[in-house]
């Protein structure tokens, strides 16, 4: 049986290949996800090791730097041979044209530390002016051995930058911005540059290794509360744990995506197996004719899938290793820093087993189907069957129940979240996710009804446009609803997830933007920055700003501290009063409500100020300036500010000739915030300083962050989609083989080769359109509900609808479906009609 199975696999290589690809992708993804965790740990191990591998005991604080005085105290403990402070200093470095932050420390005086430093290239510093850096520190700067850099430590006063020559590169890097030292210079130079450095810990060497534990405990006794005496491994673990929030979540997230990819892969594999078995009907029937028992056929099928699973999973795990090596650049800045030994056995074994299991499970049902072949089918001519859609009512019922039930639970979670005030949405989110998953399973079950229905609908439309090719394609796509639905729903899953993420991100962006707009409605506030009494923004500067690119509106403001008397009570307070014209204010502010109704006699007062002074909307207050006093009606607004606002007219009746002290700016929606800020700084004359603040920066940063995360998750989900597209290609390829006689007949009838290819392209496109559309709709709904559930307790959610992006997703899906049909189409068209008709 083994030999026969192997021969089969070799002969039907293409068939085998399709399944192999699906498994390899899923397993590679899974293994790279698991391996990435250990890559990060390995990087940290190297980085920490540069300073302390070789130390007997390392004294470190959980949180902050350590009191330098501790070093001497520890030295006095019995059994301690030597101590050394782990000093470090933060500074500004100019490297390869870029300015970066760099943590520099002194080279240890202890030989056991020095010999454990992992040099990648070059050597350690031997004289002043030499520096060795970790590969992570130089990764993005392009600095090499022999280059000059300069470094200037932050030490209270400005110290001019000191030049250094790079003499070596160490392994390791600044993974996720930890507080680890990334560059070393000669100790003597360090102490002269940084007389009072930060001490992160203390290295303690003992007299006698055998007494290590005892000494460690003694040292612990002299340490304050949050400082401990640890071994090297414990320190590494602590550093890794500190990153836990970030990197563990990342690893879990990656694994979740990988499991999704594997699940989709499972569907594709199962579908492919069913098709190949349909293909091999006559072969299998022949075996049965000749005397093979049902059990033997079943075992042969399962054995074949086992072999496939093992082969593909092995390739997948190796591929994952390759991917991780490529990607470590992101974390550590070097592609070659991870060796095989650095990766735990779990990361190899787990994904491998998962891949084999998925393959076996997916083959179970199709293998059973194979045993149902009747020996007589070997003798008859059997064309591709048309399966009637008598799919059970039970299945329809189950699907409806799941969709409605799951949907209900999901909505329940959403409303629960909305009803909560300022608490963590974790509970409702979990409920929502469960409900959502259940409803999605229902959708997939329902696909056997929805997909053929939609394709038939599309087909009627398509036939009008594309004629007979579309009609034939539609008929082919709907003749076997099970198969078409399975292919389409694999795709649907990937698209749903991507759409969900995209819509979710858009909603997050819209919500955040609205929240920021409401509370900090001004993009940029430029004001004279010295803080001295003479607050004036020169006319020249404001007029230059007004003409800059990207500025949509500019509103000058005046500012002075005046006395505010809350009407009726005594306690007068000093208040910073800002004069701004109402029309200007309305044009500049991004929130409409804040300055609505603002006019002479009205004082716009932020919530926080009003609360402080015990004032409410509508109260009367009195402002006292140099020229006199006036009464104002208070308008309380939700504004993040400690100033109050009155009209310029009112302002000048209170204060004498106060010049323009600053401007509020509203930027064009697509203006580059960084660019504008830079232009403004350039426009300011030498010697004068301005402060530029405002929400534009915040907004830009948040939006960029969300987009980056979206990009990453989309790329990850893209793997699942790719697997699904491979599934579409499989289905088409294998159906082509089934329909050989039909294709021959059509060619004889007068269907051109191009038209034949067209039927396959249209079929591929239809499967993709339907899967994509359902996915988009489902994903959009899930995305909205998910975002509302996430933000319910804190903010009012503004639903986002990224129409362009969703259209792009659909377009890519359809294109991919068309692409998947190219090879099958070619194969169909190259078979001559004679060959096709003669195939017995």
């Amino acid at each position, binding site marked *: 049986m083994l030999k026969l199975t192997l021969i089969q696999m070799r002969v039907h290589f293409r068939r085998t290949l399709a399944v192999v690809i699906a498994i390899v992708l899923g397993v590679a993804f899974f293994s790279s996800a698991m391996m990435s965790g250990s890559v990060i740990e390995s990087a940290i191990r190297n980085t920490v090791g540069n300073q302390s591998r070789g130390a007997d005991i390392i004294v470190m604080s959980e949180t902050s730097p350590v009191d330098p005085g501790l070093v001497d105290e520890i030295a006095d403990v019995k059994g301690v041979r030597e101590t050394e402070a782990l000093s470090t200093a933060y500074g500004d470095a100019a490297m390869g044209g870029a300015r970066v932050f760099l943590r520099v420390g002194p080279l240890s005086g202890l030989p056991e530390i020095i010999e454990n430093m992992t040099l990648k290239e070059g050597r350690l510093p031997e004289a002043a002016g030499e520096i060795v850096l970790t590969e992570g520190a130089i990764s993005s700067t392009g600095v090499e051995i022999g280059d000059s850099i300069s470094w200037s430590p932050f030490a209270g006063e400005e110290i001019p930058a000191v030049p250094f020559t790079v003499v070596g590169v160490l392994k390791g890097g600044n993974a996720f911005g930890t507080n680890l030292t990334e560059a070393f210079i000669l100790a003597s130079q360090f102490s002269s540059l940084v007389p009072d450095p930060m001490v992160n810990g203390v290295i303690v060497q003992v007299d006698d290794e055998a007494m290590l534990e005892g000494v460690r405990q003694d040292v612990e006794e002299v340490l304050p509360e949050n400082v401990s005496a640890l071994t090297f491994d414990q320190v590494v673990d602590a550093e890794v744990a500190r990153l836990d929030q970030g990197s563990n979540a990342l690893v879990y997230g990656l694994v979740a995506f990988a499991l999704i990819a594997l699940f989709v892969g499972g569907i594709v594999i199962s579908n492919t197996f069913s098709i190949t078995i349909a293909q091999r009907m006559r072969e299998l029937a022949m075996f049965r004719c000749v005397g093979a028992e049902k059990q033997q056929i079943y075992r042969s099928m399962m054995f074949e899938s086992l072999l496939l699973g093992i082969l593909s999973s092995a390739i997948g795990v190796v591929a994952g290793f390759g991917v991780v090596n490529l990607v470590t650049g992101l974390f550590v800045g070097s592609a070659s820093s991870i060796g095989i030994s650095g990766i735990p056995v779990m990361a190899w074994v787990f994904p491998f087993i998962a891949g084999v299991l998925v393959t076996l499970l997916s083959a179970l049902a199709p293998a059973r189907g194979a045993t149902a072949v009747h020996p007589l089918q070997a003798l008859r*001519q059997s*064309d*591709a*069957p*048309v399966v009637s859609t008598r799919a059970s009512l039970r299945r329809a019922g189950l699907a409806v129940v799941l969709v409605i039930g799951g949907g209900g639970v999901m909505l329940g979670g959403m409303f629960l979240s909305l009803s909560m005030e300022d608490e963590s949405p974790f509970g409702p989110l979990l409920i929502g996710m469960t409900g959502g998953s259940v409803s999605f399973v229902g959708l997939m079950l329902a696909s056997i009804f929805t997909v053929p229905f939609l394709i038939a609908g599309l087909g009627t439309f398509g036939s009008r446009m594309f*004629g*007979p090719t579309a*009609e*034939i394609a539609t*008929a*082919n796509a*709907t*003749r076997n609803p099970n198969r078409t639905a399975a292919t389409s729903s694999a795709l649907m899953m990937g698209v749903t997830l991507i759409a969900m993420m995209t819509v979710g991100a858009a909603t997050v962006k819209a919500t955040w933007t609205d929240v920021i707009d409401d509370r900090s409605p001004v993009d940029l506030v430029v004001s004279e920055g010295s803080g001295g009494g003479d607050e004036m923004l020169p006319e020249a500067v404001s007029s230059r700003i007004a003409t800059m690119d990207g500025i949509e509106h500019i509103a000058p403001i005046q500012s002075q501290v005046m006395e505010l008397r809350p009407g009726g009570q005594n306690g007068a307070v000093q208040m910073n009063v800002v004069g701004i014209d109402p029309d200007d204010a309305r044009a500049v502010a991004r929130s409409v409500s804040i300055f609505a109704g603002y006019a002479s006699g009205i004082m716009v007062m932020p919530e926080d100020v009003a609360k402080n002074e015990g004032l409410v909307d509508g109260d009367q207050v009195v402002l006292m300036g140099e020229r006199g006093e006036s009464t104002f009606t208070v308008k309380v607004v939700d504004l993040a500010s400690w100033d109050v606002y009155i009209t310029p007219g009112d302002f000048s009746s209170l204060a004498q000739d106060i010049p323009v002290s600053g401007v509020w700016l509203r930027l064009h929606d697509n203006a580059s915030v960084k660019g504008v800020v830079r232009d403004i700084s350039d426009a300011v004359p030498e010697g004068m300083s301005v402060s530029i603040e405002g929400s534009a920066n915040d907004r830009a940063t948040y939006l960029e962050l969300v987009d980056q995360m979206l990009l990453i998750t989309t790329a990850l989900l893209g793997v699942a989609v790719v697997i699904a597209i491979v599934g579409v290609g499989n289905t088409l390829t294998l159906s082509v083989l089934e329909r050989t*006689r*039909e294709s*021959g*007949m*059509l*060619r*004889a*009838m*007068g*269907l*051109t*080769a*191009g*038209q034949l290819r067209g039927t396959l392209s249209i079929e591929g496109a239809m499967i993709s359109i339907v899967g994509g559309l359902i996915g988009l709709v489902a994903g959009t709904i899930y995305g909205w509900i998910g975002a509302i559930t996430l933000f319910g307790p804190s903010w009012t959610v503004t639903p986002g609808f990224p129409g362009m992006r969703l259209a792009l997703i659909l377009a890519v899906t359809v294109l991919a479906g068309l692409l998947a049909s190219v090879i099958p189409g070619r194969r169909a068209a190259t078979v*001559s*009609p*004679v060959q096709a*008709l003669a195939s017995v």
Partner: protein
Amino acid sequence: MQRGAVELDRGKPGVGLTGMALETSGVRKTFGEGEAQVVALDDVSVSFAQQEFTAIMGPSGSGKSTLMHCLAGLDSVTSGRIFIGEDDLTAMNDRELTLLRRERMGFIFQQFNLLPAFNAQQNILLPLKLAGKKPDKDWFRSLTSILGLHDRLRHRPSELSGGQQQRVAIARALISRPDVIFCDEPTGSLDSRSGRDVLDFLRRSVDEFGSTILMVTHDPIAAAYADRVVFLADGKLVGDQRQPTVDSIVLTLRGMGE
């Protein structure tokens, strides 16, 4: 019954004779190279008149199916020429041949070869669909009623008997009023009664509608319906009978076997 004279028609090489539906001139078809070479057709020159029912007979391996495939432009020849009317098939590319088949040829296969996902009416109208032509309603109605299909039009092939399926295939072959209709063992998969209905209809088609039919068969009874029988053996033309009867055909076949 006299033994039919063996007449070999040798048409003029080059230009197609006027009035001939199909003509071949020195056609040779080989497969493979050197020692393994198979000669399927060996210098075949024959012409087929319009509005005639011609049967092509011979033992298996005689090349009769190959000849038909070449006549229909489904397969290429190694050397020689084939004309349908005035047009030289051997000079056409795949696309031109396809369009030719669409416009001017009809096919009836042993395996019916209907599209299982379409119903009878859709199957019949398929050639017109491919050509982008509108169906002639009257012609469609008379065809389907003569063939006894008018109450079966909405049925799928799986819901029709073998005889009914073949009749659908016949209607499909005739709907576009082609110049030539090629039949490859049309009664091979049918019981004798259905088979006779099919042959009756083919006969009627030639007599009443003026069709030109070429039928490959191994069945003498079927061949007896034809106006003329052409015999092939080992890729060569070995016999030609007019007004054949079952007996005369059987006699010739027996002679070929010796």
